[in-house]
């Protein structure tokens, strides 16, 4: 009975105390039958990468509303690669200007979900992109 269960880490990097969005996403993913590990607020990229490795997740969802995404998101991707965990899918969400999205995608963030995205879209993306 090796049914494949998708494990997701939902993380809040940096100095940002608003996790309502992250919790909505966590809940939606749970209701879609995934195992969601929530890290809590104000995590460093190092903490997030370490948690992702220990939990052996398939996906890391980063949520950020503070504006530091161009710095923090690629850093998580880079640390995962260093830990031999570059196969983990990394997606991001939050208040992210359209202009920044190409840069983030170039740096290994598979997809960015901005405010107003239906949770079903994120679920669909994750389900179809997890190896």
């Amino acid at each position, binding site marked *: *009975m*090796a*049914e*494949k*269960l998708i*494990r997701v880490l939902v993380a809040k990097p940096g100095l940002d105390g608003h996790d309502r969005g992250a919790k909505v996403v*966590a*809940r939606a*993913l*749970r*209701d*879609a*039958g*995934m*195992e*969601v*590990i*929530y*890290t*809590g607020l104000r*995590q460093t990229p*190092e*903490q997030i990468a*370490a*948690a992702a*490795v*220990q*939990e*052996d997740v398939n996906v890391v969802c980063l949520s950020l509303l503070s504006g530091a995404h161009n710095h923090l998101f690629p850093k998580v991707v880079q640390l995962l690669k260093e*830990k*031999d*965990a570059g196969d983990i899918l990394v997606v991001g969400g939050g208040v992210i200007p359209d202009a920044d999205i190409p840069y983030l995608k170039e740096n290994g963030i598979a997809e960015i979900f901005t405010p107003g995205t239906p949770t079903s879209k994120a679920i669909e993306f994750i389900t179809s992109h997890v190896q």
Partner: protein
Amino acid sequence: MELLKEARNGNKRAIARLITLAESEAEEASHALQQLYAYTGGAHIVGITGPPGSGKSTLTDKIVKKLRKEDKKVAILAVDPTSPFTGGAILGDRVRMSDLNLDEGVYIRSLGTRGKLGGLSKAVHYATKILDACDYDYIFIETVGVGQSEVDIVKTADTTIVVMVPGLGDDIQAIKAGILEIGDLFIVNKSDRDGANRLSIELQMMLDLNAVKSEWTPPINMTVASKSEGVDEVVEKIKNHFVYLQESGELTVRRRQRLETEIIDLVIQKLTTYMTKKMSKEGSYEEELNRVFNKETDPYTLVNKMLNESLK
């Protein structure tokens, strides 16, 4: 087996992969599990249970930090419930332990209960064995102590800690749930709150009523985990209990008993998996069910028939 070698060298990615594979009963895992069994037995396994919000994760965090000062390698298995409706779960115990993420000597893994068929005990069993073989000195298993499966998990530990908090009417809850019998150590957490002393006294009275069956008298410790108060004493008691287990010979007895239940559990689970698969493969099952439903036959005849056919 490359993965096993990597894991035993302390590569957390490899340990994590191995646990995932074992949890999903993958082919690769069973070989690794067979090989690593010889290396198990060195870890002190500590179960921590108590009602939601009693401070288990915070307490675990503080206990582990203390043990890390003594340079012990520590693993934590944090169990949270899986939704029986969607199969999904939110595992949030890491929130209280995020300082430990970057500690090389600590491994934290969140596990969902994954519902039926004893999935939880199986996952915890495999994960414990893997971590034990990877030379962790302590393995903490943290579960919400409300259901039978959680109590079963805790029973697999060498030392079981029951965490209580004032204000939940816990004195009565304690007799109801039978957790008085499973605790080797009791903790009244959030003891700066009203009612902590009363809870401690009531607990003591209840424990005094237990039929004497061992040399070990379960101590009751008062803690305020969020402020690290009383944590050093708890660590002391955990160690004392292990010394007691070793010196009294009870460790051997407990582990021997545990082995027996583990093996029976695994056999039952394999059989269940086998039967469920077999029954869903053979189309006749649905038909038979309809026959029972229409009172053409009865459930007991069907069960006997199914059993006889599959054991042929």
